[in-house]
């Protein structure tokens, strides 16, 4: 019975992998947003472990996509370098802010910015 449960979990993870792979490959983002809640739900890992595991999975997806973009000459190295500097500074600030902000407030701000950005991208 226990083995059946484990096999079922493996199938669930493979399914999750397929879905997040399609999203991350097609949009170049978003794989992690799907993986965190799904891994938390199926593996019943705590939030920190789910985030770390997701990051490891998305890292490999990004590696695969990066190779494709490199081969197909779809990379703008100057832009990447500039964005990388900003992203690194931002990530350092973000990890410090995380300790001082409530999760629900972060979720609310995140959701509103996403909806506004999405609508603006369709209109403009």
């Amino acid at each position, binding site marked *: 019975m226990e083995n059946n449960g484990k096999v079922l979990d493996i199938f669930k993870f493979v399914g999750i992998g397929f879905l997040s792979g399609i999203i991350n490959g*097609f949009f170049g983002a978003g794989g992690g947003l799907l993986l965190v809640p799904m891994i938390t739900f199926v593996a019943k890992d705590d939030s920190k472990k789910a985030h770390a595991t997701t990051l490891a999975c998305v890292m*490999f997806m*990004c*590696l695969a996509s990066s190779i494709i973009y490199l081969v197909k000459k779809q990379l703008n190295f100057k832009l990447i370098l*500039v964005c990388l500097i900003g992203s690194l500074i931002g990530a350092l600030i973000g990890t410090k802010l*995380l300790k001082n902000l409530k999760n629900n407030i972060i979720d609310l701000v995140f*959701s509103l910015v996403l909806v506004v950005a999405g609508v603006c991208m369709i209109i403009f």
Partner: protein
Amino acid sequence: MQILLLIIASTFSGIFAGMGMGGGTFLIPILSLFFGVSQLICQSTNVVCFLVLAIVCFVVYAKNKLIDYKVVLCVVFPSVILSTVASIFAIKVSSNILQICFSCFIILIGIFYFIKAVLNIKKEKEKEEFENRKYLKVK
């Protein structure tokens, strides 16, 4: 000047990435809306930026033994195969269509997180009220 603005803009997306909220979903709209970068270049830029950030974080998480390798093993193979196929497909799709699909995707994710946040706030309030009532009864 534009470089400085780009660094500031990517810093904002980095802040969300640092909070574990998917920085890429911000970097792509910022590059597209404010700097007029095509959707495909936005995506490739985000993928490479995230890859570098992820490698750094991966080392830290691995040292702290926070990674569930069994889960990674199950998820990685199908996701890498599909991610590769989807990336090849994305290059062939026109940037405008890609942008509309991406916009719809982030709106859906936004709605999901909004509902999640509202439900959690409601739950916390109910819990607080319950604790208050318990405290008053004891008193």
